[in-house]
């Protein structure tokens, strides 16, 4: 079923991962959805919220809330598990007892992480004939796995790609060390965490490391680029776009 979909690109995609947003839009359009990017949205507020700064978090999130709460019931799709988790689970706490609470609850009901949205209708994706001959390791982002409890959905999406072989990673569910501000606050620890994950990825022998969270990808791809890992990194959206090309 094709429908009208709002795409919230997120701030990380706006600054460093624009192609992720473009690829997500491309895939949604290929499926026949009527995609409209949300204008006027900024950031979900997570960097400040997770640092204990609720006031600026609320101020920024309120701007995004105004843009997202557009009076429709259209699903709001995000190419980021972490931001989805913030909107879906933590806005309730952030706006608790405030005038925005009702709007935040409306938005929370509409937001969908991209791969979970695509997993609603795997047959539609398969019908497009995605094909890519690659061995893939999937990195579960902490917020998708342990907050949104989305474990199977991204795997269901990947399973629609012909030729794709999903190889389990021993450290697949362990944090990559990004942690938002953590990665800048304690760069050496953060990097050591990434290295432990990358060592596992390299040893597993995959062509691609795939995840659905731009934050984890920023961290892992950034480190893998610096250390010269032979494994390439892709967001689920980018992998699908390649598979559809």
């Amino acid at each position: 079923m094709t429908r009208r979909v709002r795409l919230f690109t997120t701030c990380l995609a706006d600054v460093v991962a624009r192609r992720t947003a473009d690829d997500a839009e491309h895939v949604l359009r290929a499926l026949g959805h009527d995609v409209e990017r949300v204008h006027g949205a900024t950031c979900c507020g997570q960097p400040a919220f997770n640092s204990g700064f609720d006031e600026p978090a609320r101020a920024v999130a309120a701007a995004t809330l105004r843009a997202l709460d557009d009076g429709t019931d259209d699903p709001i799709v995000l190419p980021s598990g972490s931001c989805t988790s913030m909107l879906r689970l933590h806005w309730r706490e952030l706006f608790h007892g405030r005038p925005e609470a009702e709007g935040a609850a409306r938005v929370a009901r509409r937001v969908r992480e991209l791969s979970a949205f695509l997993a609603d209708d795997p047959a539609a994706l398969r019908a497009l004939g995605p094909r890519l001959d690659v061995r893939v390791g999937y990195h579960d982002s902490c917020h998708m796995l342990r907050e949104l409890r989305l474990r199977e959905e991204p795997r269901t999406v990947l399973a629609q790609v012909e030729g794709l072989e999903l190889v389990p990673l021993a450290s697949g569910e362990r944090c990559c060390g990004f942690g938002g501000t953590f990665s800048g606050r304690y760069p050496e620890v953060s990097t050591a965490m990434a290295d432990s994950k990358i060592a596992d990825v390299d040893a597993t022998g995959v062509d691609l490391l795939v995840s659905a969270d731009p934050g984890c990808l920023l961290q892992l791809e950034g480190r893998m680029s610096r250390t010269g890992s032979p494994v390439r990194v892709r967001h689920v959206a980018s992998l699908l776009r390649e598979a559809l090309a």
Partner: protein
Amino acid sequence: MSATTPREDAEVGGRPLPPGWAAPAHQPGADSLADTTFEERARENLARPFQRTAIANATDHTVFALQRRFAGTAHDALRDEARRIRAHAITNLPTYLEQWVDRAEARGTQVHFAADEAEARRIVAGLCAERGVGRVVKSKSMASEEVSLNSALEGAGIDVVETDLGEFVVQAMGDRPSHVIAPILHRTQGEVHELFSAMAGEDLPDDPEALTGFAREGLRHAFLTADAGISGGNFLIAETGEVAMVTNEGNGRLTTSLPRIHIALVGIEKMLPRRTDLAVLLPLLTGHGTGQQITTYVSVLGGPRGAGEPDGPEEMHVVLLDGGRSALLGGEFEEALHCIRCGACQNVCPVYRQVGGHAYGWVYGGPIGAVLTPLFRGQADGGELSHATTLCGACDDICPVRIPLHDLLLGLRRRRVAEDVAPLSERLAFRAWGLAWRHPATYRASTAVARAGLAVLARDGVVSRRVPGLARWTATRDLVLGRRR
């Protein structure tokens, strides 16, 4: 690792320990964390060559054992029940404490209250001095680490021998435990072999059984010559006034029953209302701690030797330690008191696995350490630990009593902001961020500027040099903007 040097007065009380045995003075946790930062301590630990491998191997093994232990059982229901019991016990702690004291005293146990670390040291040292105690054997106790008990007793001229094998190694190395269950998780067998060989004055076989045998021989002597045994306690049972304790090496039972005096130092939060609550809490403690169905020894200690009883200590003392605990009752962080010290959150913590327990600076490492340290020691001392985590949630998922560690850590971060402990630079940064990104127009402008700046620095879509303002981030990582080929 520093080689141990035999202490000159190895003949404490005229009862010699084997040559090379007496350990260097115990080095407890730093009295103040303010001298070093988490980052500095983490750096030091990251640089230790074998430590990360040792931690990874040990924690992987334990987590695997835990999963195997509870596979196919009603694990979640057990955890729900444990959470209910702990919440009830802590909510009603004053009542249960009163009940416990009444029942314990009726059994002949002498009860003492220690409001803080200094008072705990004073009480225990006083008991030892009054009773002419020359040698103490200790079984593993994190509460005693909290109060730096060993150095206090040694300062008073008392010979202290740690009898848990791991703690024994820690003591002999002049080290500190790095994990609540496995004190030498950060050490390798090779290091223990080296240490014990130095103590023995000969090259011992590099084999766990032989090394344990070496320790056992001297420990047996220490047990037989000690005047007092000092233990911790895993649970206080309100309805009976008992102390329950789990160990795997038998040293706990010897410590608490062989010397003429037994002193247990126990945090007040270890309370369980009923003895039958052990049926829920014990399997969770042992299963989450080591993957065992039950530990080799479970002791339920109910007072000194009674008339006509063949064994047990002449005196049993319990020192109830507050040490910042009662201040948490009824507050936002009360659930931190539910902890039963199984160490599972440390085992799964991706930060702990890299830096080890010592990086947390005080007694407790990992997620629960990052919560307890600022709560017990104050925000000024250890407050930054709430940021020493990625909030990945692995700890929440594994906690046997379902402590919401993620929420507690986040709450501590908020408190740090509310109490103005957060650094000025951080406050200004978030203020500026909040002002810029609360309006779509300034957001678009700032992201456009950031993109343009990165585009200038990038080569083939990759920024691989230090970016102004992101120097710490980009010191070890590239920013990949395009598609890396």
